[in-house]
């Protein structure tokens, strides 16, 4: 049986004391976003662009609160410059990224950023953890949150497109 990885991530957020979740919607994150919205201990903050999440994370930590960002791989390309603030200030950062442009992709415009998501993050000093199957997702999120907040580091968990399982545009719309 497949693990319910969105519910497992949600449990990790609660266990770690995360109180703010910034997100730009993605089909792959649909269930996790709904779990966060329904959780009264979390403030789910809808962003107009992923870049806003970096400001949100920095401000929340200045105020003493832990946060996590949810986004799609394309969104990683939207926040490259502002990751510089994370690096020079050593703000803890946890990004949970659902991948596009991988196995099963139907939209060629998703491929260039999908193929370079990990490289872009690593170039900006964000450690990348690849969750290639549903069983490993929660463990990677647990490790990322721990390392980010214990060591003031920037961490990203990339959830492979085959974990999300969306292969057609119609499937995405029907989700």
């Amino acid at each position, binding site marked *: 049986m497949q693990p319910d990885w969105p519910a497992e991530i949600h449990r990790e957020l609660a266990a770690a004391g995360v109180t703010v979740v910034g997100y730009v919607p993605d089909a792959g994150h649909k269930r996790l976003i709904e779990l966060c919205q329904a959780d009264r201990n979390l403030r789910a903050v809808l*962003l*107009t662009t992923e870049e806003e999440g970096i400001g*949100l994370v920095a401000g*929340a*930590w*200045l105020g003493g609160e832990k946060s996590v960002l949810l986004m799609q791989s394309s969104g990683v390309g939207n926040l490259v*410059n502002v990751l510089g*603030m994370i690096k*020079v200030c050593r*703000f803890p950062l946890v990004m949970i990224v659902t991948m596009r442009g991988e196995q099963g992709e139907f939209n060629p415009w998703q491929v260039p950023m999908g193929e370079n998501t990990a490289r872009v993050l690593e170039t900006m000093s964000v450690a990348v953890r690849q969750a290639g199957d549903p069983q490993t997702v929660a463990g990677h999120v647990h490790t990322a949150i721990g390392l980010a907040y214990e060591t003031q580091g920037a961490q990203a968990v990339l959830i492979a497109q085959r974990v999300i399982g969306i292969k057609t545009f119609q499937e995405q719309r029907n989700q």
Partner: protein
Amino acid sequence: MTLRRREVVSELLKNRGELLVIAGLGSTAWDITAAGDTDLNFPMWGAMGQAAMVGLGLALAQPKRRVLVVTGDGEMLMGLGALATIGVQQPENLSVVVIDNERYGETGMQRTHTADGVDLAAVALACKFKHAITATGDVAAVRELVYKTAGPNFAAVKVADDKLPLVLPPHEGVLLKARFRRALLGDSADVLPEER
């Protein structure tokens, strides 16, 4: 009477009490520093477009403290979406004040969109800010918003395009972060939230 940016910011930060202050990169970071560098200032040296969002994160984390974002028109224009995000979150304790000289001050005083009539206060109001004003001659109403009025509040303060001497805050990011957190959170700044 044309307002001068340093006088405006000094007036806004006079007797600031427990106010938490974020400044956008460039001139507004120098302005808050000229008014008196303090641990509860977080002057940004980069991440252009994100000052208002840092303010939102801080306001959500510290709902009992008033938070002021002071930034420039160019910086605000780079992150206009933040006004919509803040408007939806409705933080009562957050005010965003744009010191609007209608110029990119650090790069050669090129005109910004506000010089051609883009109205930032109207944008903020359309984004569901509780109060949004443009101040041209007096900052008393802006002080009222920052210190007394339930937000989210926005003010664009039109100022002269003076080119002023730099008054630089510390530029070490880790220092700016750590001093702010210690001043705000005390000893618990150095332990994780669950260990407090």
